[in-house]
């Protein structure tokens, strides 16, 4: 599945997030990231734990406020129009839990309503979701009594309860068993085929390999490379995504403080991609950032 000519639904330009910590001083969790994605595309953020994936996605979902740069979802700015942004996206992560004392059905109804789905069409929508995700059997069971597989289904259903055009899956397969993880991948594929824009983050290579149309390699808050799997293979000469990832990471780690701008050449202009991604890596930003 390749990107199409449509306009991007998610646009991220020079996004950065700096935390101030009592003990560590300034921490650059996300240090100027650019990317965009389009309807019908799965964009994967690949990175180790603490690379800045979650922070980036949380900024997109307006839970965190960016320190710099811009991000738009469906044309709405995450800083100035957070409600409109959230209305048009569904956010799923391993840490977004469900209310234990609501039933599966009530959960879906609740999230459809507070996401401003037209109230008169909520019951209809809930029926649809119950059927589609196979929740029927336990729709009246309280979430606390459900098995983790059932919970997962309810959780995905609640993410798409208001039928948002953009979906964010932040490490969705963490803690799932093989079958459940496969189920998750399957659902994401289906959603993509329906024309949703999907942002997906993971540190599991095989998943990213299988699922993502384009991949961004993220490390220490920077985007090291971005492109389709094929493009990345070509650029690095490695076949497996794992090796590609290691290739980039060791290059930055090994030559600390090297002109990161040089990395830009790794990023060819994607075919049909209007804006070249060359400038995507900011220049002159100070390196590292762990020391305050």
């Amino acid at each position, binding site marked *: 599945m390749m990107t199409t000519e449509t306009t991007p639904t998610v646009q991220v330009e020079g996004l950065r997030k700096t935390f101030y910590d009592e003990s560590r001083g300034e921490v650059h969790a996300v240090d100027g990231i650019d990317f965009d994605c389009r309807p019908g595309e799965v964009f994967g953020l690949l990175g180790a734990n603490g690379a800045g994936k979650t922070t980036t996605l949380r900024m997109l979902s307006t*839970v965190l406020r960016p320190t710099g740069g811009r991000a738009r979802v469906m044309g709405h700015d995450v800083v100035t129009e957070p409600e409109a942004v959230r209305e048009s996206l569904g956010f799923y992560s391993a840490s977004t839990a469900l209310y234990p004392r609501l039933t599966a059905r009530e959960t879906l109804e609740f999230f459809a309503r507070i996401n401003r789905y037209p109230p008169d069409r909520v019951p209809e929508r809930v029926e649809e979701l119950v059927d589609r995700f196979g929740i029927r059997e336990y729709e009246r069971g309280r979430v606390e009594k459900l098995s983790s597989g059932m919970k997962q289904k309810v959780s995905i259903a609640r993410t798409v309860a208001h039928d948002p055009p953009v979906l964010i899956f932040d490490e969705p397969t963490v803690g799932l068993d093989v079958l459940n993880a496969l189920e998750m991948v399957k659902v994401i594929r289906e959603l993509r085929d329906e024309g949703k824009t999907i942002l997906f983050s993971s540190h599991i290579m095989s998943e990213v390999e299988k699922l993502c149309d384009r991949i961004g390699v993220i490390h220490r808050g920077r985007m090291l490379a971005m492109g389709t799997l094929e493009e990345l293979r070509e650029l690095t000469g490695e076949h497996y995504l794992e090796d590609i990832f290691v290739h980039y990471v060791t290059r930055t780690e090994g030559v600390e403080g090297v002109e990161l701008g040089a990395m830009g050449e790794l990023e060819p202009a994607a075919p049909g991609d209007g804006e070249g991604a060359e400038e995507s890596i900011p220049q002159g930003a100070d390196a590292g950032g762990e020391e305050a």
Partner: protein
Amino acid sequence: MTRRRERDRRDLSVLATILRYELRMLLRDTRTILIAVVAPLIILPGWILLSNRVERSDERRLEEAEYRYAVTGSEAAWAREQIAQALAWQDPDSDRPAAPFSFVETSVPEPDSALLAGDLHLVVDALSPADFAAVLREELAEAIARAEAAAAEGGGGPDARAAALAQALEDSDFPLGEVRGVRLLYRAQSDFSRNAQERLEERLRRIRAAKRDSVYRAVGFPVPVETVAVVVEEDVASAEKVAGSVLGLVLTPFLLVLMLSGGSIIAADALSGEKERGTLETLLTTAATRSEIVRAKQLAVMVVGLAVAVVNVANLAVYLGLGVLDLPQGLQIGLSVGQTLALLFLFLPLATLVSAALLFLSGVSKSYREYQIYFFPLVIVLLVPSLAPVLPGMELRSVIAMVPVAGIAVAVRDVLLSGVDWLFAGIAFGSTAAAGVLIAGWVENSLSNERLISSAELDEADLIGGAALFPRHVFQWFLGFWVVFFVISLWYGDDLGAKGQVVVNLVGIFFGGSLFLIRRYRLPVRETLALRLPHPAAWLAALVGAPSALLVGVGLAELVNTYVFPVPEELLRAFGESLAEPGFPLWQMVFFLAVMPGVFEEIAFRGVLLHGIRKRWGPWATALAVGVIFGFFHVALFRIVPTAFLGVILAGVVLLTRSIYPAVLWHILNNAMSIVPFQLGWLPEDFTPPSILTPVAVVTLSASLWLMWKTSPREPRLAPRTSPSG
């Protein structure tokens, strides 16, 4: 326009959805509801009933007990006669026989020791006139000696009892040495002994009065003695009003506690519980705005808090109605419709404030447990102002109306008593409601505070330890210092004397404590104590600022005294530091009371404490916190206003100049100015600066602070909002 209305409608629907689900989830939490709501409904009356039972049986035991007494002294035979008359005495005004009264004389070899051992309840010591006179003189001499000893120690007020005794003997024509004396010896720590003494004394008084009467009659006094200059009391208050006066004092605190404990059931779960479970993040990624979330949850807390309060009051009413519980005697509670409406109106902002405060607690806590740690202090903070009506002379027509909670409490009392001044009730309503809205705003902000939302983040300070932990522990340490300070000054204050106390507090607690903390947390000394030279202009500013601040502080204290509540002059003086000690040369005074506090208090408060707080809070909050804590270190609650003011200003000086030196100078000047002019006789002891000076001082103080701000060294900012983009 229509679009906007459409949007508003949808807003409400989101709010209603959250509220509905919040309540539904609570109702499904059967265990919490059973234990936190239902069980107390049954248990509380049960306990009240049990305690009433025990109390009544205790009373009966006192009533029916057999009291053992012994009679001693040279006039024992005479005394037995008096006691017999006393025990047989009947109240002529009442047809009911007096309460059963069982006094048994018990002969024991050593009555005094038997009394002490608890074998006797009472010893009646009957003395001949000469003996009684001797005993009385001895007592008087002792009392006078005690008073003199206290006066010699310094500071101790005159012994009121001794003075009264001496006065009584002087004034009355008491025929010392001519009448017999009866002394009732009892043990104050025994209820029975005390009861025996009270009852016998009462009856002895009665028969004595009857005897006097007959003496007067015998010599031709025309009327019974008890008809002379009779005082007739007449209570004009209706029963409702009396009930209202009691109810007016307890109603607000009572409802407050109920609302707090009821609202807490849901508030604990509302944000901190959601953080713990991870559902808060889910909620924050939905299209509901933060203000919708906060408003809906606040509403839920309010609904539950009010419901629990209503249920509890109704429950008590049912028990009262069934006669299971009794109201205190003579209490009749009857509320008119108008009063009820007025009360509802006044409790509305209170409920808003309570729910906002609970939610705020929940918002700043990362987990359910953390919430619980803060819950108890919150109850205290809200409960103390609600006790305002207890203070004598507290009127709604004063600044109290502007104090949240306190204003409402006083207004509620007025509604129940005599009618309320609606203008001031409105002010009370407004101030409390405004506080509620303000706090609700804080809750909204807490939902944007990243450190608070994501609970899972690793707390690195724990791993690094040392200096990184200090900001979080600084309050606990200062609480500890305060306790030590408090205990020493009250427990050993007299023994140490002024100089000793200054040395112990300043060198021992403040300086020693500071050194300890610096060592314990390996704090960088230079940075912690802000040991760096300020801009030269800062010195000038301090010279101008110190006297100005002193004047402003005096003015402020006067303002509080006049408009909040008047604290009597003697009280202030009694609690003022006894600065002027006799035989204390001026240079020593200046050294001990100005220079030493200036140095050591600054090191502790504007050095270590400020350093700790500054890492966590913004400059305004820091200055305020440092000031208030500094104020609390001056023991007497009434002196908190001027000292806290000085503390805030000095903290501001350090923050502005980034140096501790101007603050030290300022502090020394401040203290010296309240000593030297009086000691040298330039100013009279009771000098108060003319109030015209206060506005002038405000201007000069502002100018001095402005100068410090202008010349303040610019440091790279700690946490830039936006980093420069490349």
